[in-house]
């Protein structure tokens, strides 16, 4: 980026950070600019990367099959007008059918069968067997917790309680990693301000 472009980027960054003090016109300007720019970029990318090569250029080359998805796409756009909304359902039904059809074998194979197979595999040798036992017990206890058709009382309740402990550890791990993720985003922005905008840090 050139100098002026970097300064504009830095100014917009500070406009967003100003929200930390309180909501203000600079932040709202930046927010609305972002929404419009992002929506416009999305539109441009869809046209350049999807519609142009897969529809326009193919039809121009003599292939008329892309008229079908083009027609369905125009039907989807019909949702902008109340009178055209019923027609758009045909196109929506098509792609909902596609994704529902993809989902069933994919989930069954990858998340049900593969994970169940790994859950019931033989224990690791030596002391690692303790970990294998814990993984299996944890898995079964969490599944018991999520089975709400049976009341969590007595033995079922005790197993579900163990499941809660495993869930707490998992959520604690997720929280720790979430803090890491959010911190990374801030580090990137401060690095940009200090290095690229203010030149206080050496260039990358």
């Amino acid at each position, binding site marked *: 980026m050139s100098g002026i472009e970097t300064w504009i980027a830095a100014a917009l960054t500070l406009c967003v950070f100003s929200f930390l003090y309180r909501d203000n016109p600079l932040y709202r300007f930046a927010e609305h600019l972002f929404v419009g720019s992002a929506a416009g970029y999305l539109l441009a990318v*869809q046209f350049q990367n999807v519609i142009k*090569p897969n529809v326009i250029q193919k039809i121009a080359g003599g292939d008329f099959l892309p008229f079908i998805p083009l027609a369905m796409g125009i039907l989807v756009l019909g949702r902008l007008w109340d009178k055209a909304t019923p027609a758009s359902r045909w196109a929506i039904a098509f792609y909902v059918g596609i994704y529902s059809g993809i989902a069933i074998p994919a*989930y069954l194979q990858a998340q049900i069968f*593969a*994970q169940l197979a790994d859950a019931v595999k033989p224990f690791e040798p030596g002391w690692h067997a303790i970990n294998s036992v814990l993984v299996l017990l944890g898995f079964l206890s969490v599944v018991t917790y999520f089975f709400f058709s049976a009341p969590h009382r007595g033995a079922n309740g005790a197993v579900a309680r163990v499941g809660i402990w495993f869930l707490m550890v998992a959520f604690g791990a997720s929280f720790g990693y979430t803090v890491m993720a959010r911190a990374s*985003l801030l580090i990137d922005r401060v690095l940009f301000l*200090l290095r690229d905008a203010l030149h206080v840090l050496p260039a990358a």
Partner: protein
Amino acid sequence: MAAKRPSGWAVRLMALDRRVIFVLIFLATALPLLFPVNLPITASPRVKAAFDTVDRLPAGTYVLMSLDYEPDIKAELQPMSIAVLRHCFRKGLKPIVLTLYPAAPGLIERALAIASEAEGKKRNEDFVFLGYKSGSQSVILGLGESIRTMFPRDFWGTPLDDIPMMKGKNSYADFPLVINLSGSAIADYYIRIAATRYQRPMVLGATAVMATDYYPYLSSKQILGLIGGMKGAAEYERLMDITGDARRGMDAQSLIHVTIALLVILGNVALFFTGGLKPGGSGGAREGTGR
């Protein structure tokens, strides 16, 4: 027995203005960047596994790389992309890159420019960028049968049939490794389709928010390595012996984490001294809201 009066400092702490916390966090970020300590970084087993999976491939191997992230998560995934791309280029591998995120092409182009310039590689001779395609799952499934149906041209409009590097490469079967660097459910789609249905060896890079969710797939060997967040990217850079933005940010990451951990402990200690932290109790009535 008279109720214990809550300590004054604890009450004042509970009512702490949140902007003080914001300033602390900003200082915890900026100071280590300005005055780096360069704490050592050790690669974790999962990142090492990802690195070794790529490292084992012989020169000339084609790798399918799906880089799926947008500016909101580029802090974690852009350094990761650059490090993995540079690794592929150093090993003489041939990455075919694509993206399923509409706002990603600009970022991917930059990552490819940085990595290829650093390793002296050329577009369409050493790598191909197919660009963006909408649809996510349907694209990932479609790549199993025909890349050309999904991507008739590359990002710059060149027909794939006109790129010599793409000759004979048209589906997952032609790629001994799939690498997905993703900040969303696209990682799940690749695991379900490319790794499980099409049995492709797969390495995953994910944001830190998602990384913990993929350990079951590591155990079942549906993925062979996992690079999680900016820390994972820093570990990969360390293994590559390069210094990118991920490594530069690690000192700041450490101080921010310590700051937040101390804030959590301090908050609980203050609540204890205000009498709000009883075993199994709510303590909500005594908790200050601050500003």
